[in-house]
C-alpha cells in the first residue's frame, strides 16, 4: 500500500507539470493586460510610462520563455510568487480563502452523504413504489436546478418569510467569521450555501446510489445470502451497500474536489470569500500568477482526492489489491 501511494504521488508530478504548462499558456492567450486594467478600468486616463513601469515591476517586460522558466522554477522551490493585482504572496491570498471554501465543501459533502445514501438505498429497495418515485423526483429536481439559482431563491425566501413573520427581513451575515470565533454567526452564513450546494450534490449521489444498489441487489451473492437465510438488514448493509458504494465514493470524491474551486456563483450569491470567487477575480484581472497558483491548487486537490478514493476502494472491496 505504501509503495502504491508513493508511486501515485510521484506520478502526480508530471500531471502537475502538464497542468502548469497548460495554464501558463492559456492565461497568456487571453488578450489584455493586468496593468492597463488596474489603471484604466475605472475610466481614468492611463499613462503609458506608468504602464511600462508596472510591466517592469511585474516582470512582464521579460521574454515569454523566461517568464515560463521562472514560473516553473518558482514551483520547484515552493515559492508561488506574489499576486500581480494585490502584491500579496499568493499563499497568503489562498490561505485567506481556503478555509471558507473548505468549510462549505465539507458541509455540503456531509449534507449530500447524509441525504443521498439512505434515500438512494431506500429508493432502490422500494423500487417503483411511491417512495421511490418521490425520491427520484427529488433527485431529478436537484440535478436540474442550478445551485446558484437555488441559492438566490432561498435567500429571497428567507428574506420574505422573515419579513412576513417578524416584520423585519432577515438574511445571513455577509461578512465571514471563522467557526471557532463565532460558531452561530459562522453557521448562519455558511449553512444556507452548504444546503443549496449539498442538495444538488446529494441529488447526483442519490441517483448513483440507487442505480448501484439496484444492480448489486440482483447479483448472485445477494441471492445466495438470502438463500442462507441472512437478515435483509445484514444483506443490505454488509453485502449490498458496501459494494454499491464503490462508484458512489468516486463521485463524492470528485464532487468534493470540484467544490473547492468550483463554487464561483454560489460564493458570489452568498458573498463568501472563497477560492472560486478568487479564481474568477484573478482571471478577470489577468492576474496570471494568482490564477496559475489557484488552478494548480485545484489540480492538486483532484490528485489527492483521487488517491484517497483509490485507497478507500481497498477498504470497501478487499478483492482490490494495489501492486
Amino acid at each position, binding site marked *: 500500500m505504501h509503495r502504491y501511494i508513493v508511486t501515485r504521488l510521484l506520478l502526480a508530478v508530471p500531471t502537475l507539470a502538464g497542468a502548469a504548462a497548460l495554464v501558463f499558456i492559456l492565461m497568456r492567450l487571453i488578450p489584455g493586460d493586468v496593468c492597463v486594467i488596474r489603471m484604466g*478600468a*475605472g475610466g481614468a486616463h*492611463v499613462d503609458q510610462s506608468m504602464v511600462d513601469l508596472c510591466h517592469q515591476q511585474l516582470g512582464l517586460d521579460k521574454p515569454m520563455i523566461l517568464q515560463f522558466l521562472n514560473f516553473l522554477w518558482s514551483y520547484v522551490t515552493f515559492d508561488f510568487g506574489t499576486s500581480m493585482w*494585490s502584491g500579496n504572496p499568493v499563499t497568503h491570498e489562498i490561505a485567506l480563502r481556503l478555509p471558507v471554501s473548505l468549510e462549505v465543501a465539507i458541509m455540503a459533502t456531509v449534507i449530500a452523504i447524509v441525504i443521498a445514501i439512505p434515500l438512494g438505498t431506500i429508493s432502490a429497495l422500494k423500487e417503483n413504489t411511491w417512495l421511490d418515485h418521490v425520491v427520484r423526483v427529488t433527485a431529478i429536481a436537484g440535478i436540474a436546478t442550478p445551485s446558484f439559482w437555488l441559492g438566490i431563491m432561498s435567500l429571497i425566501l428567507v428574506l420574505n418569510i422573515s419579513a412576513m413573520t417578524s416584520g423585519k*427581513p432577515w438574511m445571513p451575515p455577509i*461578512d465571514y467569521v471563522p467557526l471557532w470565533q463565532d460558531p452561530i454567526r459562522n453557521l448562519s452564513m455558511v449553512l444556507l450555501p452548504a444546503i443549496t450546494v449539498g442538495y444538488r450534490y446529494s441529488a447526483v449521489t442519490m441517483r448513483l446510489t440507487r442505480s448501484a444498489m439496484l444492480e448489486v441487489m440482483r447479483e448472485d451473492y445477494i441471492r445466495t445470502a438470502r438463500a442462507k437465510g441472512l437478515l435483509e438488514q445484514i444483506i443490505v448493509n454488509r453485502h449490498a451497500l458496501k459494494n454499491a458504494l464503490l462508484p458512489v465514493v468516486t463521485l463524492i470524491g470528485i464532487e468534493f474536489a470540484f467544490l473547492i474551486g468550483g463554487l464561483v456563483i454560489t460564493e458570489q450569491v452568498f458573498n463568501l*470569500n472563497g477560492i472560486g470567487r478568487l479564481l474568477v477575480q484573478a482571471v478577470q484581472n489577468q492576474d496570471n500568477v494568482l490564477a496559475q497558483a489557484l488552478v494548480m491548487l485545484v489540480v492538486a486537490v483532484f490528485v489527492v482526492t483521487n488517491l484517497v478514493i483509490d485507497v478507500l476502494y481497498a477498504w470497501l472491496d478487499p478483492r482490490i489489491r494495489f501492486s
Partner: protein
Amino acid sequence: MAVRLGLWAAGLGLVAAVAALPAEAQTPKRGGILTYVIPADAPPSFDAHRETTYATIHAAAPYYSVLIRVPPDNPASTTEFVCDLCTEMPTPTDSGKTYTFKIREGVKFHDGSKLTAQDVATSWNYIVFPPKGVTSARVSYYEMVDKVEAPDDTTVVFRLKRATTAFLPALADPYTWIYKKEILEKDPHWYEKNVMGSGPFKMVAYEVGQSIKGERNKDYYHEGQPYLDGIIGIFADKQSVRVDALRADRAAIEFRGLPPSARDQLVKEGGKDIVVQDSDWNCGNILTPNHKKKPFDDVRVRRALALAIDQWKGAPALAKIANVRTVGGIVFPGSPLAATKAELEQMAGFWPDIEKSRAEAKRLLKEAGAEGLKFELLNRNVDQPYKFVGTWVIGEWKKIGLNVEQKVVPTGPWFSNMRAGTFDVAMEANCQSVVNPVLDTGKYLPYKVYPENYGGYDDPKSVELYDKMQTETDPKKQREDMRAYEKHTMDTMVHEIVLLYWYRIVLARSYVKGWKISPSHYLNQDLANIWLDKSP
C-alpha cells in the same frame, strides 16, 4: 429638498431629485457604527496615489486627509472647493501661477506624530513627480505644475507653468491623500499595504475581500467630527447581495450607485426605511469609431452613425432600466462650461427632428457608398450601463439600415482590442471624479497627444482648439472656446459620439444622515459628516 444638477434630463428639463434628505434641520447625533457595502472584491492596494479604482477610495478614504476637496455639505457643486488640511482657500498670485496654502496646525497622524506642510508637499511631489520606480496614476493631471514647495512647516506653495482653471479642481482630486513624509521617503511602497493617515477614522482591522473596519479618530481636526464611533465597509461584489443587505439592514448604505430596478425594488420592499439620493454622474458612454478602418475614416459615415441616434427620446426610456439619464456634450451637464440644450441641438446626433436627422444619415451613407453597412460594436462585459446602452444604440442604427453586431468581451480583451485598434466601433466610457472640464475633455484629443484615445485619428485642428480653450482663464471666453472644440469633435469631424451621461442612484437606510450625493462615486467619501439617527 430637490437639487438641480444638470440641464437636460430625459426631456423633462431637470435632472436630480433627492428623494429624501431630511437631515439638514436635525442636529447630528454622536455614536453608532456605520456598516456600508463596497461593490468590489478588494482594492488592489491602499495606495491612492497609484490606484484608480473606487474600491480604494470607498475602503480607505475615511482614514486620510487631503489638501482641498469638494464641500462635504454641497458636494454637487462643480465649482466650489474648500479646505481640508489648509486653513483657507488661497487667491492665486503671480498672474494665477502661484498658489500658497497655509496648513492647519495641530493636525496629527494616527500614529500621534504631527502633520506639517512638509508631509503635504512631499505627498504632492510623489503624486506629481514620482521618483524612479514609484507609480503615480495622475502624473498627466498635474502637467501644469512646475514645483511644489514647503518653505516652512505651515506653508505649501504650488508653482504652475501657466495659469489654468484646471488646477484647483485637479488639486481637489480625491486620490491625493496626504502621507507621512518620513514613511514615504523610507519606503515609497509602504502605503500600498498599510493605512496610516490623519483622516476622521483610524483603521483597526482589514480582512482581504471581506471587510475593513475603522474607529473614530478622537484627534480629528474638524471640530465635532466624525459623528460615528466606527465604520465597517463590507466588500460585496454581487449586486443582489448589496440590495438584499440593504433590505435586511445588514448594511446601511452603498455609495457607488445601483440601477433603477434595484431602487424600485428596495423602495417598494423597504418603504420608509429606504431613502434615495440621485444625481447626474460625471461618467458617460462614448462611441469611438476606428478612424484607421474603412469606412470609419470617412466623416460622412461617422456623422451618419451620430445622426441615427435619438438621444432625446432614448434618454427617458433608458433611464427606466439603466444607470443613464441626461443628454450632454463633452462637458458634464452640471458644469458652467457645458453646452445648453439649444447649443447641443446644433450638433449631429442632437437634432430635435429625428426624422430629418435619420434622412440625412441615410443620404450620407449613400453618398459614402456605405448603405446597409455591417460592422461590430465592441462593448465591455459590464451590464450597467454598457450593455444596455450598446443594445439601444444598435437598435437606433438599425433604423437607418445598418447591421451591427455587439461583441461583448471582458475588461481585459476590451482594452486590448481598443489599444491594438482591432475594432470597428467601440463603446467606451469617460469617467472622472472632480468635475474638471478642461482635463476631462482631454479624452477627445488625437491619440498622438492623448494616447488613450483609441479612435486612431490625428487632427492638428483639434489640438489647436483644445490648447486655446485650456489656456483661457476668462470664463466667458473659455466657454466659447469649449463650444468650438466640442463642435469640432462631435459635429464637424465626429471623432467621437457622446452618449447619455450616467445617473447615480444611492440607496440607504433612512437612519443614515448627513451624507450628500455628488456627481462622482469617488467624491465625499471620508464619511466624517455621517451620523445615525437611531438608538445604538
